[in-house]
């Protein structure tokens, strides 16, 4: 494809919210206050699994300073069916129970009641006065234990979806899903070499530094204003309306600046509670989670247990692949098992594939999305097994991947056939990278892994308002997590042909712009970007029409070029170009304000592929792993703002390093979470890491005006397996359970020493 040259797209401009964010002026969720607001606090279950016999709130209500107390009885129950809320299909019966427990508490940290009081101290005191009569039940945390015979059952009404004859069986398995391609028997019969292994991961938290925060203000006539930190103000509106039996138009949600989300802020927790408390108290209510509440009460990602089997011919052609994956959804169904199954072998061109997945509930917080939900879990097993296959075949780990890479025309096991994709280009870039070309130092190991994410489109609206001085306000409804305002403004500047600094992008509330699906799935620069481009083009058409009026010519005779209206040809007449500012200043005389609007359901998101390379050293005594070097290669379509593309890659990689080496939820025998703070839930810090070298591959997506695919999801897919592969390279030890933390790795090293000694 011919290189397009752009003036603004692809340049590294300062972000529009930069000055606000380096001076402390930017207002995040907890920075917003309303006059006279009350402090809302949530009482959480100390039990992993318990019937709630009764809740007595009378003492709390009697405490001076307490203005409202609520339980699930204050919210209508919901039918057990899938229904749309803010365009996400959810089971509202489950959502309302996750927001506040009804007949049962299903995990340590599950909300059971909430209060609003004049001060935080009084609110805490009030929580202590609420009497909950629990009947503690046996609990189950681990996913394989949850599916085992005789496991404690979380939901009496749950039946396994998609399985015939499951109507009468109590179960923790919410759904079974299967994808197949080709013929497995014929695949295995062609295989000279077979690898079969089991792998497990732990749930990990998205780890955003900003806890969830919401302020609700309600009026007697039923209006609601809500300010909160969210990835999707329209989704919050949809959820709250359903859960509280309101109309969406009554609820106006204003998103604050958001201090990280990564998928974890796509659902609601305190938001509907703050609204309900505010309605009961007649005053604004602010609920801010503590860090402990974030860990105990908000959703981590799903963990999985899986068996992977691969077969290949002697020359390294993979002919059969089988995956059986059980994913834990937390207390309510909805693990991202579909995407896990679909992504699992998407990087490869394999003729015979069988993938079976299970969505399993257990007594943990309900999972929420986390970057490429499901894909990293499957990749941990599959990409580890690919390296085991390479070892057995005596092939280079990258060569084996190149040989089997998905290409244009590869039919995936979940149905579609790939068109122009960047998998091969990504692997080539990895192979030719300075990193891969550099020999290892003694004692180091090198690991490679690849990853896939679909990227998504969905609904976006945008508006472009031309001011009287020719500067532009760009309005979208997609919360800006990692610099998307800058990307949107760059595309608008490119279209308009004006200076990037003349464009001011804002993120609007739910009443000020049309519906926007949430920020997630790597969709904003793609989908909202498309809406922005369309809105700007509509404004340009209007600008041309105004110039045509001024020149008294047909609009077709006016073109837009370099930020000016120009005659389309010399036969139109001899007119000096009219700049945006010149047209804008006369807007009133030529027909009024000049704006453009667009709304669309963006289709044709381009699949994203990535490859990563890690060099690690392992301390043989402590089992401590140091990442010495890391390169992340990814096809992003077009990098609109390369700095923020690199930032997404680097950030995703480091979250993956944490997932690989340290992060996990630790439960005691009562099913209570033990590591509820950053000290014990150890995320990577600066001194743990090297620089992360990004290599951006650009295979433009033909369905986007600037070729955008999406960036943010793929980078977290390969790290766990790639690091496991590097550890295997350095030590000869294959780790199969995450995280590969020092105690586990040193135990494995010791065990290997013992068996070596026994062999001598």
């Amino acid at each position, binding site marked *: 494809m011919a290189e397009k040259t752009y003036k603004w797209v692809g340049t590294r401009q300062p972000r529009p919210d930069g000055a606000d964010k380096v001076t402390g002026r930017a207002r995040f969720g907890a920075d917003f206050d309303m006059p006279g607001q009350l402090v809302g606090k949530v009482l959480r279950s100390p039990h992993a699994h318990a019937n709630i016999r009764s809740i007595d709130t009378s003492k709390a209500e009697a405490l001076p300073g307490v203005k409202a107390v609520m339980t699930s009885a204050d919210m209508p129950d919901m039918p057990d069916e899938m229904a749309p809320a803010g365009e996400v*299909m959810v089971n509202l019966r489950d959502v309302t129970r996750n927001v506040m427990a009804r007949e049962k508490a299903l995990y340590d940290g599950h909300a059971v009641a909430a209060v609003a009081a004049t001060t935080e101290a009084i609110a805490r005191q009030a929580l202590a006065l609420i009497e909950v009569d629990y009947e503690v039940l046996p609990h189950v945390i681990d996913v394989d234990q949850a599916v085992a015979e005789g496991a404690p059952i979380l939901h009496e009404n749950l039946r396994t979806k998609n399985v015939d004859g499951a109507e009468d069986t109590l179960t923790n398995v919410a759904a079974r899903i299967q994808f197949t391609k080709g013929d497995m028997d014929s695949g295995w019969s062609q295989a000279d070499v077979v690898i079969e292994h089991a792998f497990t991961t732990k749930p990990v938290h998205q780890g955003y530094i900003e806890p969830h925060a919401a302020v609700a203000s309600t009026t007697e006539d039923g209006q609601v204003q809500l300010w909160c930190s969210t990835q999707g103000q329209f989704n919050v509106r949809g959820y709250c309306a359903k859960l509280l039996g309101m109309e969406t138009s009554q609820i106006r949600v204003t998103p604050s600046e958001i201090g990280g989300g990564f998928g974890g802020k*796509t659902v609601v927790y305190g938001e509907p509670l703050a609204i309900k408390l505010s309605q009961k108290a007649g005053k604004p209510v602010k609920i801010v989670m503590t860090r402990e509440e974030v860990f105990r009460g908000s959703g981590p990602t799903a963990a999985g247990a899986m068996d992977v089997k691969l077969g290949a011919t002697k020359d390294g052609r993979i002919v059969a692949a089988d995956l059986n994956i059980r994913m834990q959804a937390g207390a309510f169904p909805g693990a991202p098992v579909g995407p896990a199954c679909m992504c699992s072998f998407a990087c490869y061109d394999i003729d015979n594939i069988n993938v079976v997945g299970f969505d399993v509930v257990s007594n943990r917080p309900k999972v929420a999305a986390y970057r490429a939900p499901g894909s990293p879990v499957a990749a941990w097993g599959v990409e580890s097994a690919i390296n085991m296959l390479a070892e057995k075949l005596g092939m280079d780990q990258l060569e084996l991947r190149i040989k089997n890479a998905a290409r244009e025309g590869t039919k995936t096991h*979940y*149905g579609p056939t790939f068109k122009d994709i960047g998998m091969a280009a990504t692997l080539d870039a990895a192979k030719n990278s300075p990193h891969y070309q550099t020999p290892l130092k003694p004692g180091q190991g090198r690991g490679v892994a690849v990853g896939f994410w*679909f990227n*998504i489109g969905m609904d976006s609206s945008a508006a472009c308002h031309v001011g009287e001085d020719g500067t532009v306000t760009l309005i979208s409804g997609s919360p800006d997590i990692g610099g998307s305002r800058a990307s949107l403004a760059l595309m608008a500047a490119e279209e308009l042909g004006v200076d990037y600094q003349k464009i001011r992008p804002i993120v609007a509330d739910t009443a000020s712009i049309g519906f926007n699906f949430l920020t997630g*799935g790597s969709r904003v620069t793609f989908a909202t970007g498309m809406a922005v481009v369309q809105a700007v083009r509509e404004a340009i058409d209007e600008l041309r029409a105004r110039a045509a009026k001024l020149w008294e010519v047909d609009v077709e005779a006016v073109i837009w070029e370099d930020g000016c209206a120009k005659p389309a040809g010399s036969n139109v007449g001899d007119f000096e170009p009219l700049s945006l500012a010149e047209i804008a200043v006369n807007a009133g005389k030529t027909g009024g304000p000049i704006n453009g609007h667009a709304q669309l359901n963006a*289709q*044709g998101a381009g699949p994203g592929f990535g490859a990563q390379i890690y060099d690690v050293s392992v301390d043989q005594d402590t089992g401590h792993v140091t990442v010495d070097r890391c390169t992340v290669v990814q096809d992003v379509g077009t990098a609109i703002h390369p700095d923020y593309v690199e930032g997404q890659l680097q950030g995703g990689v480091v979250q993956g390093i944490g997932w690989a080496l340290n992060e996990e939820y630790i439960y005691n025998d009562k099913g209570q979470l033990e590591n509820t703070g950053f000290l014990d839930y150890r995320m990577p810090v600066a001194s743990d890491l090297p620089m992360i070298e990004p290599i951006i591959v650009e295979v433009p997506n033909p369905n986007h005006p600037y070729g955008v695919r999406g960036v943010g*999801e793929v980078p977290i897919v390969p790290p766990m397996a790639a690091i496991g592969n590097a550890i295997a390279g350095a030590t000869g030890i294959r780790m199969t359970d995450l995280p590969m933390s020092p105690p586990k790795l040193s135990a494995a090293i010791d065990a290997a020493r013992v068996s070596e000694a026994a062999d001598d």
Partner: protein
Amino acid sequence: MAKVILTRWLARQFTAGQIEHQVPGLTIRALARELEYRYPGIIKHLEDGVAVAIDGEIYQNAFLEKVEPNSEVAFMPPIEGG
């Protein structure tokens, strides 16, 4: 005729296991209606809570999307993301 690919579950429920189908129609809706004619009850599973890949590109809520005469149309679980 478009080549329609159903999920295994839909195939089991409605088409006696047949995953691939040749279906006439120029939009997703037309394909869905034709399938409904052949397999009564299937349409509600093709309308809500699914994504569809037309020639390898994923479309969500794409009922009116155009389909070329020899397109490959694969129904699949919906995708959200982080």
